[in-house]
Every structure is written in C-alpha cells, then in structure tokens.
C-alpha cells in the first residue's frame, strides 16, 4: 500500500466514524436545538471532513461539505432557527457524503459531482432566513472554535497513541493465541511428568507470558458497544418517519467494552429488535395520544457489565406483546398444539416469539412481520455464547434482555470422566471435588426413592449421576463415589463422575447447529491431545436433572426453568397426607429404631449428639402427639431452624422436588398448596411454627 493509499484509507475510516457521530448529534439536536456545544460538535464533524478533502483534492466533496458548513454556521451563530427539516437535510448531506466516500473507496476517484438537489436543499434553508446578507457572515477562520484549529489527525502522526488494525488480523491473532494456549496445556502435561527440572521452570514462564499475551489480545479486541448502538437513533428515526410515527432512542452504557465478534452479533440482533419495536411495538402518534401517552415513542438501549458478561436491555414503551395472541398465533401456525398452549403461562407464551415461523402481525410490512427474525436473533446470539429473553406488559411496552460474554471465552475447566467420555466443567461453577470411599459413601449418601442425597456439612445435597443425566449407561463401581459439588445460578447439586482429571484452560467454541440446542453443553473444546471434549453447562445439567424427578416433558423444548426455586422434600405423613418441607430446613434423614425413641412427659424425643430433639407425628389432625408405640423402624426428617430442632416422623420419604409451592384454591384446605413442577398436591409445613408448637426452647 502506498503512502497515499494509506492516507486515503485513513480518511475514509475517519470520515465514516465522523458521520456516525454526526448523525447521532443531529438527532440529539432535535431535542436540544439551541445547545451551543452540540452545534459546535456537529460543525466540527463536517468541517473536519471538509478540511481533509481539501487537502486530498476532492473538490466535489469539498464543495458539498462547504455548503453544509455554511448552514451549520448560520445555526451556530443564531442567524437561522433550527427546524426539523434542517436536521433532515443535514442527514441527507451525511448520506451524500457517504456516497462520495464509497466512490472514493472503490474507484479512488470522487466520481460524479454532488447531487444538485441536495446542494439546493441546503442552500434553500439559508435563503429562508429573513434579512440574510452574505457579509453578515464572519469568515470561517473566525467562526471556528478553538479546538477546531488543530489539523486533522493524519497530519499530526507524531503524537498518535493509537493505530488502526485490520480486524482480520485481530481475528487471526485470537486464533493463534487460542492455539498457543492449547500447546501450553500440552507442555504443561509434559512438565507435570518431570518433577522439578528446567522444563517446569520454563513452563511457568511460558504460562505467565502466554497468559499476559492472551489478556492483551482480548483487550485489543474490545470495542465499545456504542460503535454499534450509536447507529440506532438514526435507524429508528428514519424507520419511524417512513411509518409516520415518532420515535426517539435513548442510549446508555455506550462505553461498555465487548469483543468485536460479540459486538457484531449484538448489532445484528439490535437491528432486528429495533425494527420490530418501531414497526410493531410503537403505536401511531394519534393512538398514543388517545391512550394518554407521549406521542413520541421511546426506545431505550442500555448496556452494562456484570461479571464477565455484558447485558443489553432493549425496551420500548409501546403496546407490548399480548401473550394470548402470541399463543393463538403459534397454534394457528401449527407450531404448537392447543393442549400445549393451554399449559403455558404468560412467560411461556412470550417465549413462543423465538419459535421459527411465528408472527402475530396480520399484515406484512416492508420492514418486518414476515415471521422470520426472532428465532434467528436468538440463534445468532447463542452462537457467540449469549442469550435473549423477553418480558412485556400489554399496553406498557416490551423489554428484551440480551446477555453476551465479554470475550470469546478461554475458561479454566475441570476435566471429568463419565461413561467412557471426557467432559470439561467450568471451574467457576465447581465448588469442591469430593471422593468418598465405600464406607463413607454408604454412610453419607442416602437413597430416597431413587434420588440420592449426600450429607455435606449438615446440608443435604441432591446427587445426580453424570452418565445418567447424559443418557448414558451408569457405571457401577464399588470403589466409592467421586463427585463434584456444583453451583448453577444458586442451585447447588452434586454430579457423580467416574474420575476427575486436571484443571485445564480451554478455548470454548460453540457447538454446531443441531447439537447446539442440547442444553447440558455450553460448547466444545480441543484438548491438548488434539481430541475434542464437550464443555458442560451446569445450569443445563440442573435443569435436565431436575426434570427427571418431574413428569417427563412432552416436547424437547426448553423446560420452564424456575430459577432460585427452593427444593422441597416431599413425604407421606403418618395419616397418608402429602407433606413438603423446604430443603433448606432439612438437616438429616434418619431411619430410627423405635427403641431409640424416649418419652419425656407427653413428647417423644431422641438423643441426637448432645441434644434432645422432640419428635412429632404428623397425622390427619396435624396433631403434635406422640408417635404410635409399635415396633420396627421409623423415618424421621430432622429439621433445624433458628428456632431449634425438631424431628418429623413420617410414613415414607418420597422425593425431592425443585419447585415453587403456589397456593391453590382448594376450599377448606387452608394449608394446601400445589407443587408447581409436577402438579402434585402437597402441604407445605412451617417448620418454625412446628418447633414453636412443640414447645422446644433452645
């Protein structure tokens, strides 16, 4: 590339960025028409393009920008009052400049002169002003704000602190660093075999340097979300104008940094969302006035950082999405059955918007409404490891919440083996690794009707066999149990594996279509031996494992996920009634021989360590009476709370169900509630009240 070419390339890039900012400012100007700083900024944008093209000898473009500058100058000096039509003309000017830039980029020449229509349009605004006289206008030099007197960047190369890098080169760098991390893992394996020695020392050095390199490359790839979001005020404005609507866009968190590949995916998603919102969400000004809303619809795009992820909320204050209409649309499009639709709640209905082939809009507009889009939006976000959810209030508006990773991920993972396969578990979600010998396994793991519970420091941790969750044959080992304690968004559980390997750093790549939708996998990675390994998603595992205790879902669609829902221990009381105790108050499950129970006054108690724990039998009257004095063993749920301890004598322990208890309208059954996940009826017990009732003071 010759020097000239480089200068032209820099000019093109800078000009385009300048135009992006210009458009944004122009739209801002409509709300703050008299803001002198804003006007100065707009003026500078145009002036800087004009200055450079004079320098490069693009006369046509110079004449065009000059005309724009005249108009802005008049605005700035207050000789011309701002009108929306002026903003429109200036946006057209921006388009005309872009046309020039494209021509310069492809042919190296300016091509045709500027469209006389736009020149005339710009001039017309100036002629409109009453009492206009050419000599009123100060010279350009005098009019320029002081910051503007600096020469454009490309003439001051001496002091630059940043350079432009081709994005393909950045992508290549990322790939290379990813491979380097893999090789580093391989060297690490070799070093591990050698105890001490020079290789180990060199490996440590390699680790440190490559770690620094990785981080730097990641940072080099970070781009401001604003580079994408700043386009939307213009897009929304033009779109709204074509539909005779009024829409403004509010931006927040434009400076949030995100990997450029992720940012790109984000931009694609936002285009769809903003179009849909302007087209379907925002009502016409007349309709809005009729229902007491501001005639101008508002869109809000807000980005924020949180723990290595970027959240982007896109909301409107339009008509919202009617879940029932959506469900009806899905049924009539043959996407779901009537029965399925009936089982969906409002949230479930809204999820339907992400099904391929769904549109609620009866008429198809040129902008959107062909029923393609939202499924693609979700798929594209998932491709970069992100996701999207929707919430809506009919009449109030809709909000889409996008969540994407900050960078293309290199994550530390724990390697586990199960059913002959090798899997990686993200280390961030692994709380501990436990191996139980056969003796401890027998003592500390209880089998409750097929559900296994591990007594971990006073708590009861549900255990799942990884092989089983993955639908593979469960290995039967008498060598005890190896398990990982996982925390998936607050849901703690253990997965039983055959073996736990080393901790390795891996580059997680998305799975290909078809297998991407399997929720238990977050992606795939290439291990240091060159073979792939699947990366598990603890959230997906929890969902899937939780499902096995509920009725199997009819479809393979995502099961309704109840986040932060407490788990309930369901038991059959001595009178046959179904009881539920929240797992957080369950300390232990014991099967006790009757002769261990002692009667103190009217209450049965057991010695438990140093404490005496009162027992209650939960019969039909919820009588806190003593348990029946027959022989054999009893199942006791030992609960504790801040109020003290209590043992609940039950007929049998049934299940542990993750889910929320929702009140059910059973007349005469004040305590009756429904376990949400499997629809079973169970009665939630208030452990604190029981303890208080048993007269225990501790």
């Amino acid at each position: 590339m010759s020097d000239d070419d480089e200068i032209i390339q820099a000019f093109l890039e800078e000009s385009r960025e300048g135009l992006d900012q210009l458009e944004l400012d122009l739209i801002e100007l409509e709300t703050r028409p008299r803001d002198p700083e804003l006007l100065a900024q707009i003026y500078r944008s145009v002036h800087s393009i004009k200055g450079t093209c004079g320098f490069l000898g693009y006369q046509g473009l110079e004449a065009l920008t000059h005309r724009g500058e005249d108009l802005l100058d008049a605005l700035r000096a207050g000789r011309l009052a701002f009108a929306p039509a002026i903003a429109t003309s200036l946006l057209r000017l921006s388009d005309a400049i872009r046309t020039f830039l494209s021509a310069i980029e492809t042919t190296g020449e300016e091509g045709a002169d500027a469209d006389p229509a736009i020149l005339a349009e710009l001039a017309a605004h100036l002629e409109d002003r009453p009492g206009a006289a050419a000599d009123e206008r100060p010279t350009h030099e005098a009019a320029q704000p002081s910051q503007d007197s600096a020469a454009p960047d490309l003439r001051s190369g001496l002091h630059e602190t940043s350079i432009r890098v081709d994005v393909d080169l950045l992508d290549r760098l990322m790939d290379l660093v990813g491979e380097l991390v893999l090789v580093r893992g391989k060297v690490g394996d070799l070093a591990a075999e050698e105890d001490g020695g020079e290789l180990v020392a060199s490996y440590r050095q390699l680790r440190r340097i490559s770690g620094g390199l990785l981080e730097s490359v990641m940072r080099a790839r970070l781009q401001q979300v604003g580079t994408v979001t700043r386009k939307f005020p213009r897009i929304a404005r033009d779109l709204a104008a074509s539909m005779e609507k009024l829409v403004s866009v509010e931006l927040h968190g434009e400076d949030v940094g995100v990997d450029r590949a992720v940012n790109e995916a984000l931009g694609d998603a936002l285009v769809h969302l903003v179009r849909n919102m302007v087209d379907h969400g925002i009502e016409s000004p007349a309709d809005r006035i009729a229902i007491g809303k501001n005639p101008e619809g508002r869109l809000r795009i807000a980005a924020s950082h949180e723990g290595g992820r970027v959240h982007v909320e896109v909301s409107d204050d339009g008509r919202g999405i009617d879940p029932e209409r959506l469900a009806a649309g899905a049924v009539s499009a043959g996407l779901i059955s009537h029965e399925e639709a009936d089982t969906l709640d409002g949230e479930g209905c809204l999820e339907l918007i992400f099904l391929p082939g769904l549109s609620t809009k009866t008429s198809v507009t040129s902008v959107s409404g062909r029923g393609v889009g939202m499924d693609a939006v979700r798929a594209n976000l998932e491709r970069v490891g992100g996701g999207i959810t929707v919430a809506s209030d009919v009449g109030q508006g809709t909000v889409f919440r996008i969540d994407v990773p900050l960078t293309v991920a290199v994550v530390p993972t724990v390697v586990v083996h199960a059913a002959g396969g090798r899997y990686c578990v993200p280390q961030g979600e692994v709380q501990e690794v436990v191996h139980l010998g056969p003796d401890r396994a027998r003592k500390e793991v209880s089998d409750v009707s097929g559900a296994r519970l591990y007594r971990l420091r006073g708590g009861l941790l549900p255990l799942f066999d990884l092989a089983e969750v993955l639908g593979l044959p469960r290995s039967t080992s008498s060598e005890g149990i190896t398990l990982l304690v996982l925390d998936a968004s607050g849901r703690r559980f253990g997965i039983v594996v055959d073996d736990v390997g080393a901790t390795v750093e891996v580059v997680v790549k998305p799975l290909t279509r078809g297998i991407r939708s399997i929720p238990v996998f977050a992606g795939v990675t290439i291990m240091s031996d060159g073979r792939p390994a699947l990366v598990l998603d603890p959230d997906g595992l929890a969902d899937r494992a939780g499902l096995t205790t509920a009725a199997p879902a009819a479809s393979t669609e995502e099961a309704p996920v109840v986040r932060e829902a407490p788990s309930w221990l369901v038991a059959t009381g001595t009178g046959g009634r179904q009881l539920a105790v929240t797992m957080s108050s369950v300390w232990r499950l014991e099967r006790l021989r009757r002769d261990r129970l002692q009667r103190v006054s009217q209450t049965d108690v057991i010695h438990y360590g140093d404490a005496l724990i009162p027992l209650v039998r939960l019969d039909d009257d919820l009588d806190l009476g003593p348990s029946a004095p027959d022989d054999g063993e009893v199942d006791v749920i030992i609960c504790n709370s801040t109020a003290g301890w209590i043992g609940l004598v039950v007929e049998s322990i049934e299940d542990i169900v993750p889910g929320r208890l929702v009140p059910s309208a059973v007349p005469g059954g004040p305590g009756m509630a429904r376990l949400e996940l499997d629809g079973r009826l169970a009665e939630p017990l208030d452990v604190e009240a029981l303890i208080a009732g048993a007269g225990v003071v501790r």
Partner: protein
Amino acid sequence: MGKQYCSFIVGELLVGIEVDRVREILTDQEVTPVPLAPTSVHERDGDQPAAHVIVVTGGEALSLVFDAEKEVVEVDPATARDVPEIIPSEIRTLLSEIYELADSTLLLALDPDRALSLIAT
C-alpha cells in the same frame, strides 16, 4: 458439460455429492460421541472404517459419514430423474435427484444443505 459427483458407499447405496461441495474427505477419524444428540439416519459401529466427507452448509462445516469412498463420476444433467416417492422419506428428503450410471447402478445425488435438516432442530 457433465456434472461431477464424488461417490460414496453407505449401506447398499451409492450416494453422490457434487465435487464443488466437498471440502475434504478424511478417513480414520476418531469420533467423539455427543450424548443426547439426535440420532441420524443410521447408527454406526464406531470401529468400522469410514469416510468423513466434510461439506460446508449454512456457514458451518458438517461431516457426513459414509462407509467408503468411491471414484468421481461424471453425469449428464439432462439424465437427472426425480426421486421416486417409493424411497423412504427420511432418505428422500436428502436427495435432489437420481442418475443412472453406465453400469446401470443408481447414483443418489445428495444435497448437503438438506443433510443439516437431519440434525437441525
């Protein structure tokens, strides 16, 4: 000008994929099973030799596994025939057309883009 197909054996069938669509043919590949993945048309015994035909469809690479690789054949597009309805639909949906070769064997022309429908949900 004839159309060129890479031909492969799967079961008893001779299947062709347009030469331009084939990116790579690999043999002796170790396969990592993906639990819970939808099963494809044929369950394969992992130990059997296989030809992995890498095609790109929908922007992603996909490996189609065949029993064995055969020669490149050239056919006259004018002799293409529609896929008869009698062929089981799970196979028929993957095929674009059928050719009768000189030795009267049938070449089933497979459309790689439709192969994705096997696993896409």
